Structure formats: C-alpha cells, structure tokens
C-alpha cells in the first residue's frame, strides 16, 4: 500500500518535470532519433515506456550503458508517455538533450 502511494507521488513529479522539459528544454521523441542522440553523445536522459518491446528495451539500455546515460523506466505505457509529453501520439522512448529549467536529470537518474 505504502509503495503504491509513493509511486503515485513520484509519478506526478516525473510528469511535472517532463512537462517543464517540453516547455523549456530540448528533447527528441522516438526510437530512431533517440538512438541518434545517444550515438553522438547529446542525450542526457532516456525515458522508456513500460510497454516497449523487451528486445528494444534491452537494446536501448545497452546503448545507454555504453554512453553512460541514465535510463528511466516510465511508469506508464506509450500512450501515457505521449500524453505526459503533451503530444497527441504515442511515444515509446524519448531522450532529453537539454533539460532547460527542469531538474529531471539531477533527480531522476538514481532511479534505474
């Protein structure tokens, strides 16, 4: 019970931080562009939805391990992640290049 409550609160905060990044920072949505940003070492944080196919999830985690980029497993599916980004489409994975005013990089990477 306590765990459920705690995740709800941190979940809200991730959404808020993401909204701030969308407004003030630089990001890229989608698998192809996200891998591109990881390759040229521009990505600072990678967020993956929970219904991402497991092979793709492992691949992204491996790339992020090589590039020493934090990965956050978003507590929600691609529909929810798209909504959290303020978009009307599904987003399976996204990468944050520049967080702008948000502190998502500092507070999130403790989370796997």
């Amino acid at each position, binding site marked *: 019970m306590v765990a459920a409550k705690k995740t709800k609160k941190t979940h809200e905060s991730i959404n808020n931080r993401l909204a701030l990044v969308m407004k003030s920072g630089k990001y890229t949505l989608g698998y192809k562009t996200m*891998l*591109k940003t990881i*390759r*040229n*070492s521009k*990505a*600072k944080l990678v967020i993956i939805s929970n219904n991402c196919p497991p092979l793709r999830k492992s*691949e992204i985690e491996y*790339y992020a*391990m*090589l*590039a*020493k*980029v934090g990965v956050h497993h978003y507590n929600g599916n691609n529909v929810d992640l798209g909504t959290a980004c303020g978009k009307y489409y599904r987003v399976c994975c996204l990468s944050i290049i520049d967080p702008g005013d948000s502190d998502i990089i500092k507070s999130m990477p403790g989370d796997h």
Partner: protein
Amino acid sequence: MVKFLKPGKAVLLLQGRYAGRKAVIVRNFDDGTRDRPYGHCLVAGIKKYPSKVIRKDNTKKTAKKSRVKAFVKVVNYRHLMPTRYTLDVDLKDVVTVDTLQSKDKKVTASKETKKRLEERFKTGKNRWFFTKLRF
C-alpha cells in the same frame, strides 16, 4: 554522454552482406562527408571466422583452421550494434578512405588486415571477437 563509437570499438554489423559479423571501427566520420551526409565509419571485420582447433590436429591442419578472412567496409552507424568490447589492432595505416576507391586497393587492404587479425587470433587474446556470433 560519453562518446563510445571510437576507433578500436568492436561492433556487430546488422545489415548487408556481412550482417552478423564482428568488426572493429578503424575510423569514424561522426558528421558525415559530402558524399555521405550521415554518421558513418570505416570498419574492418571478419568475413570468415577461424574454425575450432582440436588437440588431434597436426600443425598443418591448425594453420589451415586458424585462417581468418577479412573485409573492409564503410558502414552507416545505423547498421551497427556497438558492444562493450574493444580490439586494439593498429589498422589506421592499412585501412583508409582511398583504399576503398578501387577494387585492387581494397583487396590489398583486406589481405593486410587479414594478416594482422590472424596474428592477433594466434596470440589467444580477444577471443570473443574471433568467435562466431550464434543467431
């Protein structure tokens, strides 16, 4: 945040004739060139892996089984899967951009990389690189 596609990195080729083969990055072109406006790199890889050598084999047979056939290629970053392994063989002088312009230059470059990869295989280091990826 760390650049990992550097010379010496072992990668897997994902597309093309050499899909599934292991290769090592010799030179990167992160921002592309005029002809190739995408991130790409020069790789030298293994076309034919050395076979398994058993104790029963005599020296002639081990020599035959330890042969490596190499290739040289320019590959888009999208068609590579980087790994955590590295292979530090010095191929920078052998594999250059102009060796891929003509067929005979490419053949001599492949022969030279074959020689260097074979001597690396015979030392017994980088064993992961010389084993075939099973898929």
